[in-house]
């Protein structure tokens, strides 16, 4: 198991390096300089660029940057030199994690339960409604949905605040609009998997044991559904936990997504790089985690790694 983990992690780190390289050269390829917008004369600009090493050859810049990153130093924001990139991430991360995490949780709970409901419900109308719901959920982009939600709940009925704020109510709409897409996907996957699993013989045996339906689903069937669902959950989690640009901007949530957009429009090189590396790490570690969890759920794989 440990060797397998090491292998996975090494691959992850390698791909991170590739990612860093690509973003680095891409940001440098954006025309213009980060200090252009400030009200400074050409001379001062030159001086500042020299100070930040921006006039060195790109390769040299890359080398210095990598060296720093390996030491855990992401540098300071160009825009806001008093703040280090790490502190910016630390400041905005909790909000993103909270919205993303809540959205993921909501997506899993509603997705799985609606998925099962869609199959077991005897009424055609509920089945149809749920199914069309999932189609809409996957078909409409989440920022459109967010606007619709704002319009209905915020503007029409004034039930919920439309944008940013620190009180918990203001998170309801963004979390919902983030969760709808993954929830629809999970719902449809669950419905399909559930239908397949209920035909399996072990369910018949469980029924023959005299077990109640709820217990059969909870103890037996859900385990089988988790296994394939995990792979999707990995990518959903990566997507949700890195912050969504659109949703965060619409609801003016101070999260990583909106920071990213901000950084790009200001050509804040160090911040862009820092965020990229951070998000890359998150995505890749989630993938590794999903792989390992999948291996752990399946006793066959788990047993083959045990005893080492």
């Amino acid at each position, binding site marked *: 198991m440990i060797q397998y983990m090491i292998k996975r992690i090494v691959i992850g780190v390698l791909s991170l390096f590739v990612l860093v390289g690509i973003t680095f050269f891409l940001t440098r390829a954006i025309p213009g300089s980060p200090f252009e917008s400030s009200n400074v004369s050409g001379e001062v600009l030159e001086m500042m660029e020299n100070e930040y090493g921006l006039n060195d050859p790109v390769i040299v810049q890359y080398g210095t940057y990598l060296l720093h990153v390996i030491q855990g130093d992401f540098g300071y924001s160009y825009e806001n030199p008093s703040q280090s990139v790490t502190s910016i991430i630390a400041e905005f991360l909790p909000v993103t994690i909270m919205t993303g995490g809540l959205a993921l949780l909501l997506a899993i709970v509603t997705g799985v339960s609606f998925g099962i409901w869609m199959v077991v419900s005897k009424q055609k109308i509920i089945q149809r409604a749920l199914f069309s719901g999932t189609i809409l959920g996957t078909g409409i982009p989440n920022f459109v949905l967010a606007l619709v939600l704002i319009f209905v709940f915020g503007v029409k009925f004034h039930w919920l605040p439309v944008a940013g704020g620190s009180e918990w109510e203001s998170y309801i709409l963004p979390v919902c609009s983030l969760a709808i897409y993954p929830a629809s996907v999970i719902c449809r996957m669950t419905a399909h998997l559930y239908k397949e699993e209920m035909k399996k013989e*072990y369910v018949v*045996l469980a*029924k023959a*044991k*005299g*077990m109640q339906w709820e217990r059969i689903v909870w103890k037996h069937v859900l385990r089988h559904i988790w296994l394939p669902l995990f792979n999707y959950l990995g990518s959903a989690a990566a997507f949700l936990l890195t912050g969504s640009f659109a949703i965060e901007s619409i609801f003016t949530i101070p999260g990583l997504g909106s920071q990213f957009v901000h950084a790009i429009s200001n050509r804040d090189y160090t911040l862009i790089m820092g965020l990229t590396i951070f998000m890359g790490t998150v995505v890749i570690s989630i993938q590794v985690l999903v792989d390992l969890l999948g291996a752990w759920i399946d*006793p*066959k794989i788990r047993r083959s*790694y045990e005893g080492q």
Partner: protein
Amino acid sequence: MSLLDIKNLCIWYENEDHRQVVSDLSFQIQKGEFVGLVGASGCGKSSAMLGIMGLLPENSGFSCERFLFRGEHYEKKIETLRGKKIAMVFQDPSAYLNPLLKIGQQLTETIRCHKTCTKKEAKERAMELLSMAGIHSPETRMNQYPFEISGGMRQRVVIAIALACEPDLVIADEPTTALDVTVQRQILDLLKTISQRTKTAILLVSHDLGVIASVCDRVLVMQEGKIVEEGTANQIFYEPQNPYTMQLVEKAKAVMSVAKKKEKGVLVLESKDIGCKFRERLRWNKTCTREALRQISFSMYHGETFGLVGESGCGKTTLARILTGILSPDFGKLWSKGKVQMVFQDPYASFDPGYTIEKILLEAIPKQADHTKEVEKMLQLVGLKPEDRWKYPREFSGGQRQRIAIARALMSCPEILILDEPVSALDISTQSQILKFLDDIQQETGISYLFISHDLNVVKHMSQRIAVMYLGTFMEMGDTASIYEDPWHPYTKQLLSAILVPDPKKAHRRKKLIVKEILKQEEGTEKGCPFAGQCGYAMTRCHTEFPDFYQFEDRQVRCFLYSEEHTGRRRAGAPMISQI
């Protein structure tokens, strides 16, 4: 008052024709009785059992005039009996156990959903049940997953689950069909012991009369959804009244007969010391080589049938694949005179469902101008109509598909046909038809068969000579009649003693079969005799040396009991006798 009293049970499926699979089925079961229900496949046995358990699938209908259990009416609330009063054992234990849950949990949850008890009590009870079902060291088993234990053991676990709440009736639906003969015997013995010890009534459903005869006191015969005859085992087997029952018993007994001897023809296939190694992955970073086949030498002659018996996993199929050329052997020499073709157990899986029969048959031979005649001739030979060549495989029954598979194999005029479990999936009457028809084809074309099966009766019925295979090597080889009458090798003896005969009186005289359960071939066994782990005659040298294939006239046996060191020097030409 009978335990279970069912009157006019009807079951139908809501497809196009609303055909009733079970119609007006009525029977009774007394307390503590061991009842057998026999019938051909598709006669509605399984549906009836699922109906009694209330486990029918959604698209089916169910009606019952009277459903009395211990004198109480249960027509509307069958579910309440499930697991508690009536339990069920299914055919394929591998599919029915949840692969992701530990054995222990699957057992304790059964106990805990009917009784209020603590986790610890449930665990103790579970261990008690496992040892009652004949599983040693229940504690370790409780922590294992179904894939970590053998098929026979899985069935024991399912039986333990069924017994969890001390039900009054256990329905066993073909509980041994998916298992090897020796395991089959053990499971049946176990069921018998349980019924005697706990006074649980058992309803054993099977298509195999041998199974029914060996354990049941009373027998119900079912045909097309109805009970056609009912009586004690002796009545049914010795004085059947109903024509259908007579036919069943007769066919089952006919299979017991030994094949006729034949003159030896010319040699068509010879194999010398064939061996084959597989690399197996133990863990992700560790592999080992396993000898799948070892020193296989035999020859086949024109027009004869050579039988190959052995339990699953002994290498029969690997050998068949080497003979057809799909695999190549790692050691040894193989020579054959003509083509070798193969027929599989499940022919449907090997057909392209989108092909017509004609196309399927023509696949096997190179394209030529006029093939219609040939196809027609072949279809007639296998007992189908020439018009059938336009049909698709799904339009045929299991037996007919097997005929088509044989026809396809015969198209390229092979010298040898390998039949890998050709009738195992068929019920008794179709089985005897196919066997008869194979015989006819052999008469006509002089083809040789290599007949592979785990069903010892069928092999005996078909083959002039047989080889007994165990863990990749031949243990004994020779004339069918002499081997069946007087087995020399300890393994052959064990195997043959597990045969079930459709004859209750004989079955009752039989002793219990005791087999040491070995889990897997342990490392290091490659050195000694493969059977040493289970052999009651094992000597020290059995664990270190690989025995030769000692030859005595036309019989060969791989066992040190027949070595010169053991039997002493014998006069030249003195006949060898069984040493066990």
